[in-house]
């Protein structure tokens, strides 16, 4: 700040300083800071090799296709097929819609529950807080294969625990083979995913809540703001940046999701494609499935579209939301 002002030719501060000292400041010669390059190089190289190059290659591949046995540049033809061909477009929009529902369920269920759990955990009088914290976070550490398998068994109409437990409560009539019904299957899979990942928003919010200084809370208490209104009026505004981060993590995670749907519902994301999301559509297209051979160009096209969607979402967040968010410093 100081230096900037000194460089300005006009302005009142300038006249007070001797011209020669300003000249001196400009002509200081700094040695080239090699250490920056050295320290950044490994990360930059690794990141370029495993992230940037494949990304560029994928984007490039989406403009190529096999024509008469040879790979050649086709411009936007692949995109035209994806959005123009009735069946490709139907599959794509179906996957995108399902993905949006998948995301919406996470935003409406996972994150509020995560925030609520964090708020409960940060209550100073809560006993066994460490136990709850660990227990709720544990599923996040499990492999999606295990989670998928466990829930398939729990919800199985034949051997499952769910129908039995519900019959104990006299609610057997409420049970249905959800994973096999085209309406509820997507909701069921989303909720399994919520169950697995609810620990992440909980932990982040919990950390944010802990970082609120005691003085602020005490000051609020002096002003007579306690309980729920304290949460809404004092704590929530302070953890908003953390909630923003969680939202964007959920968004990126959900639009890249594939694993859980694949383990629970298979690559065809049944029944009747009702749980097909962009990740499974990409997998089937790129690698092929059963008798269908993989189509790398169309796969790359779908991957590129996914990249654009995620990029758009993240940019929207960064430029439209994060900049307007009010931050407090203590």
């Amino acid at each position, binding site marked *: 700040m100081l230096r900037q002002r000194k460089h300005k030719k006009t302005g009142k501060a300038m006249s007070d300083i001797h011209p020669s000292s300003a000249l001196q400041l400009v002509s200081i010669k700094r040695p080239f800071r090699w250490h920056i390059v050295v320290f950044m190089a490994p990360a930059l190289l690794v990141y370029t090799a495993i992230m940037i190059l494949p990304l560029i290659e994928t984007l490039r591949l989406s403009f190529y296709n096999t024509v008469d046995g040879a790979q050649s540049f086709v411009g936007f033809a692949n995109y035209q097929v994806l959005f123009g061909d009735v069946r490709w477009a139907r599959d794509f929009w179906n996957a995108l819609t399902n993905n949006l529902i998948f995301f919406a369920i996470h935003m409406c269920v996972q994150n509020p529950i995560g925030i609520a759990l964090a708020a409960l955990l940060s209550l100073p009088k809560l006993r066994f807080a460490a136990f709850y914290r660990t227990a709720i976070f544990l599923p996040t550490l499990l492999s999606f294969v295990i989670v998928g398998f466990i829930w398939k068994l729990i919800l*199985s109409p034949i051997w499952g625990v769910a129908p039995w437990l519900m019959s104990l409560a006299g609610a057997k009539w409420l049970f249905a*083979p959800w*994973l096999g019904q085209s309406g509820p299957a997507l909701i069921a899979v989303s909720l399994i995913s919520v169950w697995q990942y609810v620990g992440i928003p909980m932990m982040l919010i919990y950390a944010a809540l802990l970082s609120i200084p005691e003085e602020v809370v005490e000051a609020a208490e002096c002003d007579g703001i306690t309980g729920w209104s304290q949460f809404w009026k004092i704590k929530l505004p302070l953890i908003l940046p953390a909630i923003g981060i969680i939202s964007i993590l959920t968004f990126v995670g959900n639009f890249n999701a594939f694993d859980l749907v694949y383990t629970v519902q298979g690559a*065809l994301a*049944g*029944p009747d494609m009702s749980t097909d999301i962009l990740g499974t559509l990409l997998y089937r297209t790129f690698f092929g499935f059963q*008798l269908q*051979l993989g189509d790398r160009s169309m796969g790359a096209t779908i991957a590129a579209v996914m990249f654009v969607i995620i990029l758009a979402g993240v940019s929207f967040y960064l430029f439209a939301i994060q900049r307007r968010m009010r931050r407090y410093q203590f």
Partner: protein
Amino acid sequence: MNSLLKTILLATTVLASAGAASAADVTLNIESWRNDDLAIWKEKLIPAFEAKNPGIKLNFSPTAPTEYNASLNAKLDAGSAGDIITCRPFDASLELFNKKQLVDLTSLSGMSNFSPVAKAAWSTDDGKSTFCVPMASVIHGFIYNKDAFDQLKIAVPKTNEEFYAALDKIKADGTFIPLAMGTKDLWEAATMGYQNIGPNYWKGEEGRKALIEGKQKLTDPEWVKPYEELAKWKPYLGDGFEAQTYADSQNLFTLGRAAIFPAGSWEIALFTSQAQFKMGAFPPPVLKAGETGYISDHPDIGVGLNTKSKHPEEAKKFLTWVASPEFAEIYANSLPGFFSLNSSPVKMADPMAQEFVSWREKYKPTVRSTYQILSRGTPNLENETWVESANVINGTDTPAVAAEKLQKGLDSWYKPGK
């Protein structure tokens, strides 16, 4: 996935060089996805071959079934694949042949032991060149709980009418679930349902060829009727069949909770080892008594020769042996349910396997309708058939709507006669 591939590649190269260093014998490496068969190869097939062919050693190196196609393609492209390639039926192998990665075996002595239907799965579309020796096929039908049938005094159904009468009786009794089938895994409904009973309606090869030639459409009654039958199965399936997986169906049957299992012959070995009751099998029931029946006798495994093999002569010796009745007998008896495609009949010890294979005499065999040519494009007819078969049973789509969807999908890329 990539690292796994690399380990496989590394392991095979190390193994191959170790084998070459230890003996002056020629070692042939066999690529396969049948890791379930490792013991049978090691204990029975390899010793039998090596005893007769001194100087040739065999090394059976299987990959996990789901990884096989990807890893094989990578190895073939890199030139590090084994000498002998186990062939998937139809297009997957045809593509390898077109890429000149499989040797044309049309003139191999021993090929004459196979019928054209058996060879069709590994021949070019015009049938002129064959590139894999047919090894085994699987037959569709129904496996039933004999004790349950005796208990309820049900005779083995021969016609469609008897089939539903039997189902009604089992359902009325209530002890058993009439049909052990679920729609969760989709392919069960298509493979064990549609492809199982379908050939009786589209008259086997006749209908399948007409479909490929464009003379019939999936919306024709021959192709819609099987869906109508499948829709009728719904009330006979177990509670919550929509979420019942293939493994669930297998368990329901082997635990004795279900009476009939729409099956493929590959179940024989597992069922015989797990079920505590007597079992039998019957072919898909015909529409009217006395009518010609059709069965799906689907080629599943073949073996071919890698173009880049360094020992093509020895490899051909091995392939000729695979085409011989001797191999057929060892193989079919070690793996009941995988039937030799050899024209000379094979004696099998397993009674249920005998039952399945005996249908070949009275019934006309055909292969699964979606496998040849029709699943080459996008949308893929086989995958769509999985989805629609499940939809029809679940009641999501009516048979007519399902057929229309399939035909529309096929029309979008397949132009018959071109």
